[in-house]
């Protein structure tokens, strides 16, 4: 064994015998609490980003539609020439009502299952 190996062994032996610190008992619980809180924060942030992207995309589509009507000279919609407009409004309102019902049902389902 050369000098370097012997020197290394002295420290290696010392460090191998040195006691290792024990992690505090509630460490895991404390960290996981922070992790869950962070996870919720990330989810909310992603939801906000998602919502913002949808709003931006919708606005863009509306702007493009308006620009098309103005600059490309697309034929204007004459409300008077649409005799079936009450019917379309009725269908639209029905769809919105169903969407609202679906949203409420999902909300109550989530609440019920998160309590379990």
């Amino acid at each position, binding site marked *: 064994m050369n000098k370097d190996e*012997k020197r290394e062994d002295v*420290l290696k032996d010392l460090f191998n015998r*040195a006691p*290792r610190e024990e992690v*505090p008992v509630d460490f895991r619980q404390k*960290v996981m609490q*922070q*992790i*869950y809180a*962070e996870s919720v924060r990330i989810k909310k942030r992603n939801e906000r980003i998602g919502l913002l992207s949808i709003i931006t995309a919708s606005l863009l589509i509306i702007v493009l539609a308006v620009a098309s009507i103005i600059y490309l000279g697309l034929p204007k919609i004459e409300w008077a020439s649409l005799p079936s407009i009450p019917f379309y409004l009725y269908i639209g309102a029905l769809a919105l009502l169903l969407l609202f019902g679906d949203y409420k049902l999902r909300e109550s389902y989530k609440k019920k299952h998160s309590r379990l």
Partner: protein
Amino acid sequence: MESYSDTYYIKRIQEGDTTAYTCILDKYSRQVYSLAFKVVRNKEDAEELAQDVFLKAFKHLNGFKGDSSFSTWIYRIAYNTAISYTRKKRQEWLAIDEAMIANVAEEEVAGALEQTDSDRQMEILDKALAQLPPDERALILFFYTEGKSIDEIASITAFSVSNVKTKLHRIRKKLFVLIKETGRIGNE
């Protein structure tokens, strides 16, 4: 209980299964806490630092591309967090005479250690380590306590391989001087 690879748990966490992080925590909390404690030498600060390390790792988990092992990656976070914490404290460290470092006789130190009992040896090592600056303490701990290779230490600390070799050689010599001095003071 069946244990899976780090990659498996990371994938699950990235897919939204936050609970899988407990497996990562169980596997690395002792190493991270132990490193933090040895660097800052205070239980409360070490616990806070270790918590900070795991929170940072969770936040940046999507940035982990698997270029290095997860162990190296989390050690890198732990090393950087602990070192920046100690820098804020602005503590001054003992300067050792270059001549003493160059002329330290390792055999003499080893011989002196052999004449003391195991508890006293541990006490001397602890006191000697306490006198090393935190970054040097972390390097020597990576090498001896964690059994990391030179390449892994270079990857954790962002030093070059040759720089790590030089630093480790010098820290070892410094540690010998400190062990010799601490042992001598204790025996007087």
